[in-house]
């Protein structure tokens, strides 16, 4: 029982980390990014390349890849998203356009990864020593992943709720029309939010690659789970993403342990639908 709780929290920690990036992109930049999971996978492969090719530890890869993800997302925003934002007459139109364009991007990134790395499962071994937690044996890399997710999540919450910069971002998320009246540059806020999301996707990729096998075509599943966590937690809510992510990890672990590992996705969807019926705006969402 207790071991499933520990394992569930570890798994949920990564879901939370990954979903935070998506919720910021969707909540503040208003871009529904369907290629998010493929960005994660790209970061997984980059980490793997550095680890096997250059013998760099994933922690060092983090130092390289996170700024790279931030910069690349800025470029993507400037050349792909910005024209759509300018063109869209309302929020609904932007939502449809961003869904379509990132759906195309998903296939491009996936195709590039397939040509570069092939379709096989890839993994590497890092910090794979057993550690005893509350009587349960957990791999050290998984614990490190959980610690990293929680630390990054906490840092984000502090930045968003305790600094002026974070307040600006939250203002844009809450009232995109009124924010400019207070002298807030919404364009800049959207650009920054999209880039932070990209940086978080890369962080998630590095962390995930430490303990999970990955394939070039696996991005879709990550996007899906991250999307579900975002909706469960409430669009744009970082604390919501953390709670919903942990919840999802626990549900998956318990279903895999007590019912059947093949039904985890079905269980996740059931939770998603059940919650939507009760709270359509998510756990932390506002109507």
């Amino acid at each position: 029982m207790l071991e499933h709780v520990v394992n569930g929290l570890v798994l949920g920690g990564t879901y939370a980390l990954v979903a935070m990036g998506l919720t910021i992109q969707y909540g503040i930049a208003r871009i529904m990014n369907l290629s998010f999971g493929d960005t994660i996978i790209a970061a997984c492969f980059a980490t793997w390349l550095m680890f096997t090719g250059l013998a760099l530890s994933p922690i060092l890869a983090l130092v390289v890849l996170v700024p790279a993800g931030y910069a690349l997302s800025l470029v993507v925003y400037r050349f792909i998203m910005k024209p759509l934002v300018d063109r869209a007459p309302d929020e609904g139109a932007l939502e449809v356009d961003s869904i379509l364009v990132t759906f195309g991007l998903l296939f491009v990134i996936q195709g590039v990864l397939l040509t570069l790395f092939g379709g096989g499962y890839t993994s590497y071994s890092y910090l794979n020593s057993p550690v005893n937690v509350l009587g349960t044996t957990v791999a050290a890399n998984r614990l490190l992943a959980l610690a990293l997710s929680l630390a990054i999540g906490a840092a984000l919450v502090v930045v968003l709720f305790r600094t002026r910069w974070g307040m600006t971002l939250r203002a844009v998320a809450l009232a995109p029309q009124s924010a400019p009246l207070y002298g807030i540059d919404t364009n800049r806020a959207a650009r920054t939010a999209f880039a932070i999301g990209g940086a978080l996707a890369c962080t998630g990729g590095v962390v995930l690659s430490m303990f999970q096998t990955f394939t070039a075509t696996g991005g879709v599943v990550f996007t899906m789970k991250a999307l579900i966590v975002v909706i469960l937690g409430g669009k744009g809510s970082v604390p919501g993403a953390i709670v919903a992510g942990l919840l999802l990890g626990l549900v998956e672990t318990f279903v895999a342990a007590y019912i059947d590992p093949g039904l985890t996705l079905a269980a996740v969807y059931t939770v998603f639908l059940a919650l939507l019926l009760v709270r359509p705006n998510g756990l932390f969402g506002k109507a």
Partner: protein
Amino acid sequence: MKTPLAFALAAVVLAALAAAPLFIPDYWTGVLLGMTGYVALATAWALFSGPTRYVSLATVAFFGVGAYTVAVLNEVLPYPLVLLCAGGIGAAMALVVGLSTLRLAGVYFVIFTFGLAELVRQTVSWWEVNVTYTMGRYVFLPFEGRHIYWQLLALAAVTLLISWAIGRSRLGLALKAIGDDETVAAHAGINVTRIKLMLFVISATLITLVGAIQAPRWTYIEPSIVFNPTVSFMTLIMALLGGAMRLWGPLVGAVPLFLLFEWLSVSFPDHFSIILGLLFILIVFVMPQGVLAKLEDLRGRGKP
């Protein structure tokens, strides 16, 4: 053009297409078959997603369910009954999905459909492994390529006819109102959820039937073959290229793109999805309303 004349012309074209397999080599019958399948898919997709602007990413979920139903039942029931069952299962699935997501904002629907294919694929795989102990099934039906082609041609014609009839009915008017502004439509007394649900069920049933009819082409069927996400993607890109808001739009998009994809998948099999993705992004940027609207735009600008 007057309606009776248009109908007569459409009937002539249809007859010519139906007679084609008797004169052309088998390879080209196969190409025509695939093309007709995608015309039906794209038109059925646009039936719901065009006017409501609810982007459905679940085409292959229904397509695959249709194909799989045929694979499971083809030795138990006579063929027409199998098709009926497939249509029924597709409609029931669409009803469940629609009832749970269409009351909410459009984005919930998109997210749900995004994962639906994967969910159905995993559930079917789990069922086959744990309950029926089979992985992969055979379809033995006495059909040649042209028999399947004729069925698809009929289905495509019916789909276009349904689309035309809806466009002229009160239902079509209500749909246009919903597409323009959902809140206004609701205030004007339109039962928004019911109409969306109805359209989604019709569209999904047609898509399921396309999958069911095409099933005998594979002979061997397993979940990873019939739930291939590329099908959803191709349908979407075809409907968008032609223009999802118009009757003939999906057809105009499906024909050239199918030929292009056929050529691409032979010439550049490794880079297929990259090219597909780039093409799609280009379409979203250059002609978000589709080729037909773009042409009208250009023609309108040319006039003094």
